[in-house]
């Protein structure tokens, strides 16, 4: 399994053609207290770079983009009851959705953990 990162602060864990998507620890720290998460419905088609989910802090609503194109297989139902999982465990239990990849080559432009760490360092 490999983990990739986007410059919009999403992470994606890829296992064959399946993947899990969430937002990074840096993203949750910037957003602050998460009070609501809207995840995509099962079967929804998402497009690389397109809107896929919405995360709302006390202050504002922010879009979460799909790191790659694909078909959503599951949204994280636990976030409906406890959106603060995104704050407490953003890169684990606070995942947003799972999807089937359309085209694994879309992963090529994404960052690995070291590159993402350097990217955040430069912000």
């Amino acid at each position: 399994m490999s983990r990739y990162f986007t410059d919009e602060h999403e992470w994606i864990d890829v296992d064959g053609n399946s993947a899990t998507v969430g937002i990074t620890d840096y993203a949750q720290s910037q957003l602050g207290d998460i009070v609501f998460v809207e995840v995509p419905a099962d079967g929804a088609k998402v497009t690389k770079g397109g809107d896929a989910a919405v995360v709302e802090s006390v202050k504002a609503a922010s879009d979460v983009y799909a790191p790659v194109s694909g078909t959503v297989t599951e949204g994280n139902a636990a976030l409906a009851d406890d959106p603060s999982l995104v704050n407490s465990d953003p890169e684990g239990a606070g995942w947003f959705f799972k999807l089937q990849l359309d085209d694994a080559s879309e992963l090529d432009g994404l960052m690995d953990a070291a590159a993402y760490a350097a990217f955040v360092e430069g912000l």
Partner: protein
Amino acid sequence: MSDDTVETVLELPLGDWHRAKGARMVPFAGYSMPIQYEGIMAEHLWTRESAGLFDVSHMGQVILSGDGAAEALEAIVPGDISALKEGRMRYSLLLADDGGILDDLMITAAPMALYVVVNGAVKHADIAYLRNKLPVSILLNHMEDRALLALQGPKAADALARVVPGVGRLFFMEADSFLWGEEPLWISRSGYTGEDGFEISLPAACAVAFADALAAQPEVKPIGLGARDSLRLEAGLPLYGHDLEPRIDPVQGNLSFAISKRRREEGGFAGADRILKALKDGPSWVRVGFTVDGRQPVREGAEIFDGDQVVGKITSGGFAPSVGAPIAMGYVLAAKSAIGTTLEAEVRGKRIGLTVAAMPFIPNRYHRKGATK
């Protein structure tokens, strides 16, 4: 969150103090200001249970002096200012000729003068308007060399009294001068959170030392603009530029309490025709509060529906930490404004249930004169 304008962002006296305390700074009203320190939720709840220190030095502090300043000001505000006793303050509204609200403001009868605090984002326009509308015999001094702090919360009085003995004698909406060492302070028992608390005007040169003295009190933590907004929303208090604007008159704004009895009888203020008519006939639209079904926040700009019909618009909304649910404020047709009316807001194509609710959303805890604790 980013601000693409190239306008200069000005620095306030406590800018570096906030950064040293770990604040995240954002441009607001032309100044670099703290949006949050440890987090909006924690700061909000801390203020409700202890005492929060807010830097509101971006606001405009103006002294109006000269014979007849109160009577002159009454031409453009609907409050009874000439009856204001020294050391008393009043919430009022700066009115355009058509009765629209140009700003909301606090007016205090200080010795020999009126002390007026206006919103930061519109202070230069306000001052120009005041200068234009007031006779030349009235002196207007914009005190840009003073900072303004607010200490808010149930433990604010204990904490402030340790730094400035004697402040406990003030009741809600009273103000007086105090000394901190040799520094002249002007302190009022007022605020924008629904809690007991104080607003402290002080020389900018001693703002860092005074903020340090307050922050050294165990009850006190610095609080950012994010929590300031969620606290005032729970308190049902409108935010100028969002819940109030020039197209809105005081009756629509649900601020008729700011139109004093004598002024209702006599008129003689900007827009009196429109405002007195609205008082008599009732407004067409009115500002109300809403509780929100579920957990999804309904925010500024969302349209309000009754079935297929658009009946209003949300002007402020968000998650309310002390309520534990989303709340909102907005304008609806008067026919839909009764407490308990159920409506819907549309957010990202989805309908969310709203119920018109009494404000404040949590009880005020002001230190009123004559009130039993």
